[in-house]
């Protein structure tokens, strides 16, 4: 529609995707003493100096900002792991490596607020960005290969932010395809009507079985 009251609440903003990611748990090491927190979103603590605790990311960032803890980056956020992921992403034209659903948001939050807690921070950051770029190009090329006659599209290993970036375009394009497809005679629509894979991550998955 040409005139829209903005904002359109039915779309998720990047900030909203980040908000969801902030509920992911992460390990912190406090440097202070604090009683347990009985929050609406759950109970956390007690917090004791040098004793690791699991808290939601937003809480970790809030404490870190006030100099009350260090954050332990998640396991996948190491140069070694990420180098491996990047290589694998590059080696395969279509497959996506498995990364946490919120890897983009988590890494940005940690880079912004806890850079000193990430060993080899600079490397980790550039690896993460490279991975994201490689994956994004892959998404793009799999989008380009749609044959337009699909009734559903699988996007198994895309992360939350990646889904959100491609959503407006893909949803719109698929709807246009669907509409134009309905103009065609029915005869040859059958063989192509299976869900098309946007990625082929897990080999031997059953989605396409049964032809």
């Amino acid at each position: 529609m040409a005139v829209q009251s903005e904002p359109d609440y039915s779309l998720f903003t990047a900030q909203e995707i980040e908000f969801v990611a902030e509920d992911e748990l992460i390990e912190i090491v406090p440097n202070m003493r604090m009683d347990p927190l009985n929050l609406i979103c759950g109970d956390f603590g007690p917090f004791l100096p040098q004793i690791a605790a699991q808290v939601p990311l937003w809480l970790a960032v809030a404490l870190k900002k006030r100099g009350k803890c260090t954050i332990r980056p998640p396991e996948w956020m190491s140069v070694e792991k990420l180098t491996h992921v990047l290589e694998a992403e590059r080696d395969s034209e279509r497959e996506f490596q498995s990364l946490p659903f919120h890897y983009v948001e988590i890494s940005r939050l940690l880079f912004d607020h806890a850079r000193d807690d990430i060993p080899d921070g600079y490397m980790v950051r550039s690896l993460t960005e490279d991975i994201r770029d490689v994956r994004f190009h892959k998404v793009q090329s799999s989008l380009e290969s749609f044959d337009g006659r699909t009734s559903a599209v699988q996007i198994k290993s895309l992360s939350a932010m990646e889904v959100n970036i491609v959503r407006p375009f893909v949803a719109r394009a698929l709807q246009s395809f669907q509409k134009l497809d309905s103009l065609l005679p029915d005869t040859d629509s059958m063989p192509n009507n299976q869900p098309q894979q946007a990625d082929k991550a897990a080999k031997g998955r059953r989605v396409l079985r049964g032809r």
Partner: protein
Amino acid sequence: MYGRKASQLVKELTGGEKGQLKAFNDDLFNQVIKECSSHHVGLQALFRNMQEEGLDIQTTRNADFYGALIHHLSLTRNKRCLMAYMYNRAEVIRSLKWKLGRVLPNELVTKLSNSEKEYFKGYSAALDAYMNEMNLDLTVDMVPPKDPYIQVRVLDDIGEVLLTDRSANLARYSMHFLKRTDAEQYICQGLMEELLS
């Protein structure tokens, strides 16, 4: 061609930035309303012809009938354009309530028709009533929260105001540490800006 003016009216909704509002086009709007009346006059004249000739309007398919049909179709087309013009503008007008609160700046008021001004009031009242029943202000928290307080600079003389937790003198160019939900509306109205820490 029939319906041309009506489609011009609809085209007024396009172009320009999203969420912007052009002044209500009284002149064009009234011309389209007039066109509706003249289609109706034309339609009735043709039906009268048919009746005078003793023909059944339901079943006769002569030149008079097809003429009448064209007038009827043009009338519904014009109606669709008029309605779409009002309806889509109404959508933007509703968003004003969300962004600017109950009182609109003059520059916007002048862009509204009288009925639209009433509509804005009516919508505001319906929404306020709902928020009262829910005991919750829905016009704040439009962006996911971070810290409870944010730093702002005042851009206009707002003066002494009552905030959630205290009163404050919001003089032009003064800086404050305000509750996020207190600052949000002022920023939206262009009276303050957020300062990044």
